[in-house]
């Protein structure tokens, strides 16, 4: 198969119109989530995209605090969803339950009996204090996979130190190495340690599910987002240990690959250029009309180019070339000569690129409660069990009756009694982020009764 045929084959294989005809990898897996903000709730979001049933337990009425997190107080569509919450609420069921209540704990334990995975991101030891920690739950369900995500882990000198994304970014050292030399360290413009932490935590859950499938054994997992950031700092630690020097900030330059930096083009785009192999570098030299550089002993091999003095000598040449060349020209030359080049994309560039529509990364959901909404799609693409977005989010507690009837073996009478006592709650507060949009017909999207 030639390259072009391959790309066509892949496009057919991943046809987004066929997604719902295909099976789901995690079908039948039940995950109970008792989490707030991002680090906790995002882990089950990844699992939900691939078919796991996620039951999100929230405080009746108000629900997760994350339901308020949105820029400029906007809740699209029509007052329904906080933008910050939208991406982690997909495919989940919402159950209103107040776990402080003794009767709620009994309902919770019934759910745990049926669960494969339980995930929480409370302060270390909180649920244990409430009598529903791992030690209690494993008695009820020995096959349970229990994962606790937090900042610093579940034991050690800093256990119970509250943590935010920004704490994990600063204490891991990633903020320190991000920024321009001689300027202040900077954290990422996103909640990086939260989302990336939740992602690797989902990998841990899958490894545990795989193990359980082999042996029948469940397990306990403690996951620290700060440690996970430390893990991602590539050569920082080995470099410091070998040289005794601290790692500093290098702006957009990658001091381990040369050339690899961001330059400003003639048409004022920020352009990233990178090549490591000597062949790619030759390609760049040809594009620049400077084949002599590829022969220059200072630049002819990657290890030579990486020497600090040679990096200093090479970068001004590339900078000048980029400054006199427009981005479309560079893009064309990069493709022709085979070196790495990409302009810095903003959300608009990505959003309007037909490439991502073909790939299903720009995904339109026809949501039963909220109507048509466009959201970001799913990153890993699996051809036999592709991920999918079924609905974008649910009003607080809307699935309480359905979930408790199906998974907790409660009678309708018991459910009504519990609701009257305020133990559970199927009604949302009439507030943005908690309620359905005003256009909702009062019926569609309700599973039971």
């Amino acid at each position, binding site marked *: *198969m*030639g*390259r072009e045929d*391959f*790309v066509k*084959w*892949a496009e057919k294989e991943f046809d987004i119109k066929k997604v719902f005809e295909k099976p789901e990898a995690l079908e039948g897996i039940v995950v109970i989530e008792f989490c707030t903000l991002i680090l906790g709730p995002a882990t089950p979001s990844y699992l939900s995209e691939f078919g796991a049933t996620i039951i999100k337990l929230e405080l009746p009425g108000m629900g997760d605090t994350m339901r308020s997190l949105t*820029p400029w107080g*906007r809740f*699209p569509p029509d007052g329904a969803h906080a933008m910050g919450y939208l991406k982690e609420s997909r495919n989940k069921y919402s159950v209103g339950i107040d776990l402080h209540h003794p009767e709620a704990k009994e309902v919770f334990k019934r759910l745990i009996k049926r669960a494969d995975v339980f995930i929480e991101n409370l302060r270390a030891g*909180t649920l*244990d204090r409430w009598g529903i920690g791992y030690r209690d739950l494993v008695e009820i369900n020995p096959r349970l996979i229990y994962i606790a995500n937090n900042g610093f882990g579940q034991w*050690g*000198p800093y*256990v119970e*130190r509250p943590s*935010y994304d920004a704490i994990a970014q*600063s204490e*891991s*050292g990633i*903020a*320190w190495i*991000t920024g321009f030399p001689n300027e*202040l*360290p*900077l954290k990422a413009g996103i909640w990086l340690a939260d989302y990336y932490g939740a992602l690797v935590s989902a990998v841990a859950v899958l*490894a545990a599910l795989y193990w359980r499938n082999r042996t029948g054994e469940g397990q306990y997992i403690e996951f620290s987002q700060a440690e*996970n950031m*430390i*893990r991602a*700092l590539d*050569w*920082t*630690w*080995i*470099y410091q240990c*070998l040289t005794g020097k601290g790692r500093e900030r*290098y702006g*957009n330059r990658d001091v381990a690959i040369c050339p690899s930096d*961001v330059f400003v083009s003639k048409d004022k785009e920020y352009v*990233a250029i*990178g090549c490591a*192999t000597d062949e790619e570098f030759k390609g760049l030299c040809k594009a620049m009309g400077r084949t002599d550089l590829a022969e220059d002993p200072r630049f002819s091999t990657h*290890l*030579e180019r990486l020497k600090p003095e040679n*990096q200093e000598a090479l970068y001004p040449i590339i900078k000048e070339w980029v400054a006199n060349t427009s981005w479309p020209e560079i893009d064309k030359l990069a493709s*022709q000569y085979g070196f*790495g*080049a*990409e302009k*810095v*994309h903003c*959300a608009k560039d990505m959003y309007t690129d037909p*490439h991502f529509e*073909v*790939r299903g990364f720009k995904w339109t959901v026809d949501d039963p409660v909220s109507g048509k909404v*466009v959201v970001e799609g799913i*990153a890993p*693409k*699996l051809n036999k069990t592709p991920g999918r977005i079924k609905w974008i989010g649910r009003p607080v507690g809307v699935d309480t009756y359905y979930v408790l009837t199906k998974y907790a073996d409660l009678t309708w009478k018991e459910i009504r009694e519990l609701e009257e006592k305020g133990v559970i709650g199927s009604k949302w507060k009439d507030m943005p982020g908690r309620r359905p949009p005003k256009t909702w017909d009062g019926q569609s999207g309700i599973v039971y009764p």
Partner: protein
Amino acid sequence: MSLSEEKIVGMAINKEYAKFTYSITNPDDVFRKPEALDDVVVLDLSYGNFAGLFASSLLAEAGAEVIRIEPPGGDIARKMSPYGIMIKDAGLPYIVEGRNKFHITLDITKEEGKEIFKKLVKKADVIIETFRPGYMASLGLGYEDLKKIKEDIIYCAISSWGHFGCEAEKHANQPSYDLTDQAKGVIMSITGEPELDPEVPQEYKKPLKSGNWMGWYVGGAFATLGITLALFYRRRTRKGQFIDCAPCEGLFSIANYLFQFYHMTGRKMIRAGNYDYAVFPYSYFKCKDGYTFISGFTDPNWSALCEIMGREDLRQMFPTIKERLTPENQPKIQHEIEKWSSSYTSDEILQIVTEYSRRPDRKGVVVTGRLEEPIDVLKREHWHIRKTFVEIDDPYYGKVLVQNSSLKGMSETPGRIKWVCRPIGADNEFIFKKYLGMGRTDLKKLKSKGVI
């Protein structure tokens, strides 16, 4: 317990629980426990790409037998190292991501190399590759070809632009790097010095990459998510599959609400530096030993912060979120908080905040933590006790210190590091014997032909 109890329970309020979780996730017990994926064989063909290498690292930490296949001259990734620092045949990042992997050489462009590769595929469960879209298919080694040899193979391909879509064709001749992934992944466009701050020189008001290889790490983690999903599905159904992973999609999918924001407003987000325009105070503040993070956003938490600082007047001056989020007020508040914070070290502030958090009459929660230099991260006792770093004395590469597995906190099947790296082709003899029955004479022949 081998560690003193005081260190294990630390600042815990629920000390019993801390002791219990330590007892089931104690890092000293790791090698007495089994590995989750030790029935999985992975062939990692990554070339010049740490997204692929990190994906196979995660699997190797969880116990998979990862066989790195390099061309006879070695992977160019070995030569990606800060300022070209090498330990023998490997740069520093390669040593970090060489963990637990066997290293063989094979020229898959040669006929004989292809045949050997196909024989290995018969014994494998997962293939990872980072070549340009369609390259493997053009060698006759694409997913469709390999599926004929091993029906349930899981094949994961990682590339900047993905393996289908208009850009995949357009860029089919180009390599992918962390920087190009980050450039395309949008996060970079909103990371950097604050655009609205008049004190920041104009030349610094531009997009900024994450200091580490965040594009590669995010891309690799999403690839592993796909692979572990596929492995789980395969155990249930005996079906393999093809996985396409584009790191830029991974980055954009974790980029807060940027997608929604553009969708709704059609506008660009601006760079906020260390501020979060939706949450304040939630930033870094000057202290005696540099900078420390301090937050007190909601009304109760703001009251708590003002009480800690002994500044009831500040609380009255900026009583609600609205006043605190007003752009003109933020520098004023920053200045007032720094009047207090700059007379303490970050550790002193942490202590003050922690003591306050234990008061029964506390008004809210204040969160703090130092903007740490990486050189100081290595000195923190917390990481030391939790074995966040491990020192390994390798027979070939010598004594090195590397970051431990993120999966080390699994009670039954903890992630671990068995060895750091192996020289080019060091495991040819073992792997070719184990899987293909080849001996010394066969290998000699292949070597003379340049196949291995």
